[in-house]
């Protein structure tokens, strides 16, 4: 027995070291930089690592402003992460570099288990593959101060005619009826696209890759957005997302078009849940359905290695289980929406105090997201030029031509298509 002990100890040590060697490491880069989001992700990673001794997941938070340049540089230097969060227009860049792995089969498995939102998967499905696993959804809605509408005796608008009239009526006594951005940036791109989508002009490309932007419906959408700008604060030509929320929380804006304003409203706008209204973005007169911009944030697999792929699938499968998924979404309560059917009803999602307090608003957001789409990622018509078109904010450039320079909407839209063609070349 005495002689056997050192041998067994050595064997145990060897086995332990063997197990350590067999660990698969996964580096995750994500752009959820606020400390509370990083902390929540770390809590989940720690739980996963504890439950899976053969896999070690680590996170490195990145910046959205830098990742478009940093990720290709990291790939070139051989320092790329194994998993990288993405939004749809980021994927074609890395895909063109041959760095993104097809996760189609895995997404089918997840869909069978959790029922993934079709529109979330669609944004990443093209060129005979699925290039990222959707994780959480975001959709724009019309947010409004209920009391301002009620005092003015105005019903929540459903059509453009009603919307324009309501906005004009609400613009008085230092209050702006609506806060709409007219800056050059992604926020403006997204808002103007909601106008296009609500006038049946959601396609940027034709199936053959030619552009479908220069249409009367698109010009009408820009004309409507420009008309609404009259009732928006004059500094909206320099707005980013936070400016709209600040305008809404300070009650200088009676309404805004935004993904969410729950956290800002709760902390800076009084926090009376009953006073916070949310509705679908009004549709053009004659359109039958409300539409919006919606897109899923997703995770790409960059590692071209069977072992890492298996570890990636284990990690994402674990994360999408309803018991964990709701906690993952609530790293930012009231912003990130579920992309799975069982996630939308998960106890872990609704147990959050903020989610409970603003439950009706979040349910409306989820309902709005069902009819969401994203420019350049509709109908399977996705082409690599969408990345520079989105990156250079061509949609908002066109709006600025109309609003700032006073160009005719039809002419500005035609010039916008010419610019897209120039970029695509």
């Amino acid at each position: 027995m005495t002689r056997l002990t050192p041998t067994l100890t050595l064997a145990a040590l060897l086995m332990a070291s063997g197990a350590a060697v067999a660990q698969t490491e996964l580096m995750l880069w994500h752009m959820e930089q606020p400390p509370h989001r990083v902390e929540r992700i770390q809590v989940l990673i720690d739980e996963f690592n504890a439950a899976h001794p053969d896999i070690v997941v680590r996170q490195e938070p990145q910046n959205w402003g830098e990742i478009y340049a940093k990720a290709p540089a990291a790939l070139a230097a051989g320092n790329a992460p194994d998993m990288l969060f993405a939004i749809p227009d980021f994927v074609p860049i890395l895909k063109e570099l041959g760095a993104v792995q097809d996760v189609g089969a895995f997404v089918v498995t997840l869909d069978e288990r959790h029922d993934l939102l079709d529109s979330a998967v669609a944004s990443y499905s093209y060129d005979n593959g699925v290039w990222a696993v959707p994780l959480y959804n975001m959709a724009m809605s019309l947010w409004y101060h209920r009391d301002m509408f009620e005092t003015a005796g105005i019903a929540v608008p459903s059509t453009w005619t009603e919307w324009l009239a309501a906005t004009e009526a609400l613009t008085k006594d230092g209050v702006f009826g609506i806060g709409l951005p007219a800056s050059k940036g992604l926020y403006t791109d997204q808002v103007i696209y909601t106008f296009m989508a609500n006038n049946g002009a959601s396609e940027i490309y034709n199936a053959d890759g030619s552009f479908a932007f220069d249409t009367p419906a698109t010009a009408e959408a820009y004309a409507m957005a420009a008309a609404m700008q009259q009732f928006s604060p004059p500094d909206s030509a320099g707005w980013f997302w936070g400016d709209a929320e600040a305008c809404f929380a300070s009650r200088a804006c009676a309404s805004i078009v935004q993904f969410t304003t729950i956290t800002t409203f709760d902390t800076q706008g009084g926090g009376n849940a009953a006073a916070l209204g949310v509705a679908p973005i009004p549709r053009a007169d004659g359109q039958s359905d409300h539409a919006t911009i919606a897109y899923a944030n997703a995770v790409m697999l960059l590692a071209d290695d069977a072992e890492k792929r298996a570890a990636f699938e284990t990690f994402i499968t674990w994360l999408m289980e309803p018991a964990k998924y709701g906690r993952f979404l609530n790293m930012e309560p009231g912003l990130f929406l579920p992309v799975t059917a069982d996630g939308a009803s998960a106890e872990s999602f609704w147990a959050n105090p903020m989610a409970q307090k603003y439950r009706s608003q979040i349910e409306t957001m989820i309902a709005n997201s069902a009819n969401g789409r994203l420019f350049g990622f509709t109908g399977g018509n996705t082409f690599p030029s969408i990345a520079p078109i989105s990156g250079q904010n061509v949609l908002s450039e066109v709006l600025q031509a109309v609003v700032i320079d006073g160009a005719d909407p039809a002419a500005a839209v035609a010039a916008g298509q010419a610019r897209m063609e120039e970029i695509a070349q």
Partner: protein
Amino acid sequence: MTSAPVPVRVARRLSERRLAILFVAPALLLLAVTLVWPLILALDLSVRDVRFIGQSGDFVGLANYADTLNSTRFWESAGRSLIWVVGNAVVQTALALAAALILHQRFPGVQIARVWILLTWIVPTVVVVIIWRWLLSNSGGMINPLLVQSGVINAPVGFFASRESAMTTLILINAWRWFPFVTLMILAALTRIPADLDEAARMDGAGRWKRFSRITWPLLQPTLAVLLVVGTLLSFNVFDIIWLITAGGPSAGTQTLPVLIYETAFRGYEMSQAAAMSVLTGLFLMVFAVMASRGMSREAGP
């Protein structure tokens, strides 16, 4: 005392030269690594067809240069850069000269004021941007209510709502940030002007304006000339404030060359095109710096 024979002197001079080269070598090597090598890479990139970092790209000769020189956006941005540089030079110099003349006086608290004025220069750019975006905002900002209450305007205005107002506002913000640096330089130059010159002129009955225009201003010229060159190069390359406040908008109204180059490289994914723009811009700046230096040398005399 006899001098060393010629071969010994030559040998000594040679060894001194070797020693000098040895001393300078680390600095030269550092320069080569940090300046020359990236410059060579930029030149190489500019004659290829690289869209993203990491691609090797095909050799395309001078096509990117031809595209750049034929690009309306490039020349429009160059024009805006010129407005930006001239605007900044005028506003910064005026503010700095006024501040330096005040701080050159003796009054209680002047030492504190000289330190305090540096504050805007010390504050990080991001903080400057947040402060000014908030001050100029229509939702809780202080500038609009102040202007309305004092009767300057009837209703709140958008400082970034038009190309002209956006460029003007940005120039004022940037000048506000940088004028302390220029103030310090001018203040240093003022302290070097002999006090007896001013005193003599005063004794001869020269007034304040005459003393300033005949003594102070001419003696400040060399400093102002250096500041013109340095300030032009510094303000030409300003990117952060413009990008963080307007991102080049509205309607490209503040899209200077650095902003255009950044957009082309990292938003338009045309690395080679952006490299060609950078090389051309670098050449323009180099020509300006050489011409300005020659001009200054000529004025300074032999």
